């Protein structure tokens, strides 16, 4: 029954999307307020229907209703409840439904939070959003219906890929999808502004919180994914430059560029056409990621089952959405002339520098991801582009960005003074150089790149602290507490996010250079020393989980004589479907992670084990968390939270819109 309700709700949502995507445009063109107002109701109706459909699918998963094909293929009665629920979005059809749910959710949020947007503009935005929803609904209904029936229903389902049965991965896709879909709002705002032919500073103020929200979700989704890879894949890696990882990283870079360039539009009424382009590109990259995962064009561990019909459909949709919006852009761009000017040395210029590097990096990642396809398409054989390419690009492009990032927030708006900013940041420069030199000295010059990375991280972190100090006017004759209150949440958010980047850089640099690893075979009672910690192997025991059996290894870790912790990694064999996964045991210390993996049995009761000490690796996730907190702090800023014009300003925008 739930299947039929869900299916029906999808069809209704399609009708509402059709109405919502067309009539508001008619209304806006003719000045018919009633038609324009339909946009709000249509989006709410779409949201309700998507909620019903998604609820119906979740219900089918939770109750293990195997008469629904999707549930039978992806679920199993023995699966823990959490993974029954996460199974809803852990497959192609369900994840698309989740996309639609999020598209309608964000639409409804725009309708709710944007009450004060001019009606005409809001109806345009929601109509564009409805068009996106319409496309996805058609895709679901024609090629990927999650509610198809199976008759007769099997008694048991096939089960979910065991790699996905993990708390980290239960929440990794929804976070990412929220990020991808969040960018649809920026896209809809951009297209609406192009249709209206006008981009104002007010527009930037409206769009920026949405870009920021999407960016926070993307940050969280990517961090969760990399954390999962770190402890589940069992060899301590956390990022592989896999095409699908890149597909999530590119929108992140574009969103990061967007939320910085929007500031320039808001402050100086410049960079308008660039910002619009970024908003379109950021969402297009999200769509591209979806396409790459589902079309079978590229292989990846993340790929869904491939189906050419689906690939062609998404490609058509992609061409329509991206091509259509860029055509509109090509037509309207000449109208978007900047009105404000800013000096070569200014905060605005620093933000332009940020945009140049971030977007170049995104373009390089795109080229690296698609390059094997180009080569193959031109018959030059098969190649793969590996981590060295991307790591080189990251080092070359991110280093100057981080140097500039330390200085940028110290520059004044409109016209800055380099020598004054350098004066403030000078101690940070010293800290960076000293950190790099000390490392070089300690390692007798072996780790030049590491010293460079450490220097950059130290520079960035200390310059952020100096910048806060400068804001507080420390050392001047006034009360720091009163200046403390004057720092807005948006400013705290910025400092937090920038500091997070510094800490990520620190984590990457140190853990890449100084990880200690032991790959060895141990018998119970053996002790191996890793980075000054003694790992004693106590043996193994069989374990029975709800839908797996496992071998659990026991290690006691000593720091000198004292017992630090015991580590219990597992080697699991899932029954439905049959698959082996490794569960690393990790104990985070302040200085780094102790990491143990138990592998296969060797002869005479010995086991192959992998033991690591990964210094400062937690910096990656701590830094990502700080970025998210920074974003949320900034979102909670009163100015943004209201994010709406009042009084005079509103009238001028209403008249111009």
């Amino acid at each position, binding site marked *: 029954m739930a299947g039929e309700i869900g299916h029906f709700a999808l069809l209704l949502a399609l009708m509402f999307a059709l109405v919502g995507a067309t009539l508001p445009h008619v209304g806006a063109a003719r000045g018919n307020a009633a038609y324009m107002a339909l946009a709000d109701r249509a989006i709410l109706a779409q949201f309700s229907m998507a909620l019903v459909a998604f609820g119906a699918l979740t219900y089918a998963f939770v109750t293990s209703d195997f008469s629904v094909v999707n549930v039978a293929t992806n679920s199993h009665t023995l699966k823990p409840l959490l993974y029954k629920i996460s199974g809803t979005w852990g497959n192609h059809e369900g994840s698309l439904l989740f996309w639609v749910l999020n598209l309608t959710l964000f639409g409804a949020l725009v309708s709710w939070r944007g009450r004060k947007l001019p009606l005409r503009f809001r109806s345009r935005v929601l109509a564009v959003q409805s068009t996106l929803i319409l496309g996805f609904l058609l895709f679901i209904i024609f090629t990927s219906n999650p509610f198809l029936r199976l008759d007769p229903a099997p008694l048991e389902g096939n089960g979910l890929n065991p790699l996905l049965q993990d708390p980290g991965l239960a929440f990794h896709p929804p976070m990412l999808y929220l990020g991808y879909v969040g960018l649809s709002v920026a896209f809809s705002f951009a297209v609406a502004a192009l249709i209206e032919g006008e981009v104002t500073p007010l527009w930037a103020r409206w769009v920026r919180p949405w870009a920021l929200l999407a960016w926070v979700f993307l940050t969280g989704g990517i961090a969760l994914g990399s954390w999962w890879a770190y402890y589940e894949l069992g060899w301590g890696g956390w990022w592989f430059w896999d095409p699908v990882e890149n597909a999530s990283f590119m929108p992140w870079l574009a969103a990061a560029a967007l939320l910085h360039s929007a500031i320039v539009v808001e402050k100086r009424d410049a960079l308008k*056409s660039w910002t619009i*382009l970024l908003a379109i590109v950021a969402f297009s990259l999200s769509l591209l990621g979806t396409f790459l995962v589902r079309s079978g*064009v590229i292989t990846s561990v993340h790929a869904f089952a491939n189906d050419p019909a689906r690939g062609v459909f998404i*490609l058509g949709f992609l061409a329509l959405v991206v*091509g259509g919006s*860029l055509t509109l852009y*090509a037509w309207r761009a000449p109208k978007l002339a900047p009105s404000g000017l800013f000096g070569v040395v200014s905060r605005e210029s620093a933000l332009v520098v940020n945009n140049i590097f971030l977007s170049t990096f995104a373009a390089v990642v795109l080229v690296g991801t698609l390059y094997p396809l180009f080569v193959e398409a031109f018959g030059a054989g*098969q190649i793969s582009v590996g981590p060295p390419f991307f790591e080189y690009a990251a080092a070359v492009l991110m280093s100057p960005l981080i140097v500039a990032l330390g200085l940028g927030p110290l520059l004044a708006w409109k016209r800055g003074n380099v020598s004054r900013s350098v004066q403030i940041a000078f101690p940070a420069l010293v800290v960076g150089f000293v950190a790099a030199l000390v490392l070089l000295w300690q390692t007798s010059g072996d780790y030049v790149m590491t010293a460079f990375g450490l220097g950059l991280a130290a520079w960035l972190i200390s310059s952020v602290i100096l910048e806060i100090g400068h804001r507080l006017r420390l050392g001047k004759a006034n009360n720091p507490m009163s200046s403390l209150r004057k720092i807005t949440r948006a400013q705290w958010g910025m400092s937090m996010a920038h500091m997070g980047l510094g800490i990520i850089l620190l984590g990457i640099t140190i853990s890449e250079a100084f990880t200690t690893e032991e790959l060895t075979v141990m018998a119970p009672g053996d002790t191996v020393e890793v980075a000054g910690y003694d790992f004693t192997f106590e043996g193994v025991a069989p374990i029975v989980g709800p839908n797996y059996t496992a071998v659990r290894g026991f290690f006691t870790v000593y720091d000198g004589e004292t017992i630090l912790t015991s580590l219990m990694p597992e080697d699991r064999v899932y029954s439905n479907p049959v698959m082996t996964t490794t569960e690393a045991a990790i104990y985070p210390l302040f200085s780094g992670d102790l990491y143990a993996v138990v592998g296969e049995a060797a002869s005479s009761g010995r086991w192959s084990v992998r033991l690591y000490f990964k210094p400062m690796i937690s910096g990656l996730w701590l830094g990502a968390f700080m970025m998210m907190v920074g974003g949320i702090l900034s979102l909670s800023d009163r100015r943004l939270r209201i994010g709406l014009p009042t009084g005079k300003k509103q009238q001028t925008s209403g008249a111009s819109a």
Partner: protein
Amino acid sequence: MSRFVPLIIVAALVALFLGMMLSDRNPNEIDSVLVGRAAPEFSLVSLDDSAPALTHADLKTGAPVLVNFFASWCVPCRAEHENLMRLAGDHRVQVIGIAYKNEKDQAIGFLNELGNPFSKTGLDLDGRVGIDWGVSGVPETFLIDGDGVVRYRHWGPIVGDSLEQQLLPELEALR
């Protein structure tokens, strides 16, 4: 003019993707680097105790030879077995079978059950020879010309149209 650049890039990308999708390729399939080169040297014990060891010299017979990597635990191998029998029978081509990561008894049982298309066999228990050949999984089949040079690699089972449309034309071209 620059305002058209994004549009042009996107149009080019869409054309590329469309071409790739319609080209009926399998992205998991990796071109063999062996094609055009001499088959790697190896020496393997035969499944038949009375037969001599299988070596790369057995490939240089002056006539085309097929080398098939198989395993009893491999389901697609069962699917293609009938076609291997036809190749050895109707098409009079010598087929050499290499049991890949397979216990000897089980490989012999597999051939006893389904029939033995192989003129010679080898046992690659630890998969070492498979690595030299660039085998990514079973089944994989290599077409070797009379001089011991690899001419064609068939990835996956020889089922459906792939016998008539891919393997046989390659084979006929060598004859």
